[in-house]
């Protein structure tokens, strides 16, 4: 009996009928991999659209149906929290834009249909950040205990303040004043970027689809972490596929050039095409080929491995090496060398101690399952 490969999981998304040959054990592996990637509901919807849901083994169907309910509930919860934030912060910032997952959900577009995420991201003008933090604190959103280094990292170098967690509901809000870390020197004029917005029917401010796509691809390719890389790639695929028209591409390319993230746009188109067979118009491919980096062979090596479904069951060869390369590449992009070294020493010290004394050496025993 064959173990499912990462390519099989991608293939199940591209051509759902390929799953009809799966054994029950392979279905079980698919469920494990997808649950780990928070993509169960996404695939459930893919299988339903392809008309093959009924042919899935009953035991597996239940896992997809569970995920459907949880995703629907997630959506309702996000809308509730977003309304709460909008109301509470009505008079504070110049703009309050819902980013990433929350933005997808509030857009009502397919990209947000089955999306599950752990925190709500908002973007506001930098001058209002203090007032927002105080206001949120007053109504129960509090910052969690941070190490001194992390606190400093957020306040001085990051593009967001430390995450705020609602004491009662447990929801987490990330308040951003830029979409790229300040320390990278690549941050953009947030106030200008914030003009690329639309207001939804329910009155929420979100990014236009072009700006949303740009943010999504910056987040994926200008980052040191790709743990949820495959899911993010599916977001990009869905955004591109459902907005595949001239105006969208024109806006996206213009915006990428303005903000100097052409390389990231090139990579997004390259890997959605390679891994998910996303259709990108030829004229667009030609236009963005100017952003192809000199070290494309190396970049291919790391992203062709790390952007595929990532679970111990289906890890490709050299995955760890590629993941490490992403970590190094991301850090180098984000921080000047002297700060990077300092940051790694602070972070690395903790992991060295943990690897010798056990992962939970610093963890206080808390009998609270």
């Amino acid at each position, binding site marked *: 009996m064959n173990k499912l490969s990462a390519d099989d999981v991608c293939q199940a998304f591209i051509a759902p009928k390929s799953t009809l040959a799966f054994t029950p054990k392979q279905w*079980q592996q698919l469920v494990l991999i997808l649950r*780990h990637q928070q993509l169960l509901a996404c695939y459930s919807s893919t299988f339903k659209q392809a008309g093959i849901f009924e042919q899935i083994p009953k035991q597996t169907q239940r896992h997809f149906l569970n995920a459907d309910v949880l995703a629907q*509930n997630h959506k309702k919860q996000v809308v509730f929290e977003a309304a709460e934030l909008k109301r509470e912060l009505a008079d504070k910032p110049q703009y309050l834009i819902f980013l990433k997952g929350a933005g997808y959900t509030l857009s009502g577009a397919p990209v947000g249909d089955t999306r599950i995420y752990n925190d709500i991201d908002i973007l506001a003008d930098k001058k209002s950040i203090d007032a927002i933090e105080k206001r949120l604190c007053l109504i129960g959103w509090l910052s969690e205990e941070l190490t001194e280094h992390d606190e400093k990292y957020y306040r001085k170098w990051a593009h967001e303040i430390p995450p705020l967690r609602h004491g009662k509901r447990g929801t987490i809000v990330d308040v951003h004043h830029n979409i790229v870390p300040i320390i990278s020197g690549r941050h953009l004029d947030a106030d200008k970027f914030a003009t690329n917005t639309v207001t939804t029917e329910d009155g929420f401010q979100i990014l236009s689809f072009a700006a949303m796509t740009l943010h999504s691809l910056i987040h994926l390719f200008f980052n040191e972490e790709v743990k949820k890389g495959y899911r993010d790639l599916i977001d990009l695929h869905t955004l591109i596929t459902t907005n595949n028209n001239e105006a969208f591409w024109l806006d996206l390319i213009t915006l990428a050039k303005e903000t100097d993230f052409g390389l990231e746009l090139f990579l997004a188109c390259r890997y959605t095409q390679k891994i998910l067979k996303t259709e990108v118009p030829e004229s667009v491919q030609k236009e963005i080929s100017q952003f192809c980096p000199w070290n494309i062979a190396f970049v291919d090596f790391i992203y062709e491995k790390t952007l595929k479904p990532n679970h*111990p069951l289906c890890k490709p060869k050299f995955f760890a090496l590629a993941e490490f390369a992403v970590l190094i590449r991301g850090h180098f992009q984000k921080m000047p060398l002297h700060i990077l070294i300092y940051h790694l020493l602070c972070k690395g010290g903790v992991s060295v101690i943990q690897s010798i004394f056990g992962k939970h050496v610093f963890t206080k025993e808390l009998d609270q399952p």
Partner: protein
Amino acid sequence: MSDNYFIDLHPFSFSVNTALPQVIQNLSTIYGSRFRKLSTEVADYELSVQKSSGIRSFIKPQARFFCDQQEPFKPLSFQKAYAFLEWGMNWTVAGNEVQHVIIHSAVLAKGNKAILFPAPPGSGKSTLTAYLAHNGWRLLSDEMALIIPNTQTVVPFVRPICLKNQSIDIAKTLFPDGKFSDIAKDTHKGDVIHLSPPESSWENQTNTAELVGVVFPNYRANQDLQIYQLDKTQAFMQLVDNAFNYSVLRETAFSTLTNVIENVQTFEIFHNDLAQVAAFLEQEIIDFE
């Protein structure tokens, strides 16, 4: 060397990867033939219980619980490993399964008539559960009642009965032949032991039952049996408070629980004698109609 085991617990199944003899031995005591080495079975959830690594594992060893790649809890001291797994199984079901309205409650049945016993820890619920299960009733569940949406039908999810503190000695006296796990000391619930329900409950593991009553039990050492009929609103609110997935299932949960409450008898009882309670339940609820 760690091995893969399979636990068949209708309607869900688990695989457990562990190398810890105490976990394997307790699982085998509690689950009997439903616990075996994994071969070709397809489990719903892949769990594992491991000893934590590093130098600390020699000085003050800890147990870690995983649901596939996820580690939802901080580690516990080593001797609680088996109890930890039991809680982990509850967590896994509560977090993922939404095909049923799940109530934090014991369910016991006579024939196919079932009674729900939702109650907070310390109310004597598990002692009552253990008593009834050994006296002609069958256990459908000790902690999680699975109700099929918009029906009064309860699906069994037979699991061990979790007894705490003083109830441990009482149970060991009452059921000298019972299959008990080791005691997990100093947990967040105090000392805890698991007791496997009698074979008849296991044999009926797949047979559903229909709800006819909801009873909130309270043990009071100095109190003879007192019975209060609960009004429907109170009973409904108490069920909601005890529902694991009420906020997820929303309208479905609301309509299911209102339907249940409207069609069953609802009582709150205070007692210090299990036999009297059993007699009351049989006469007034099961044989009613």
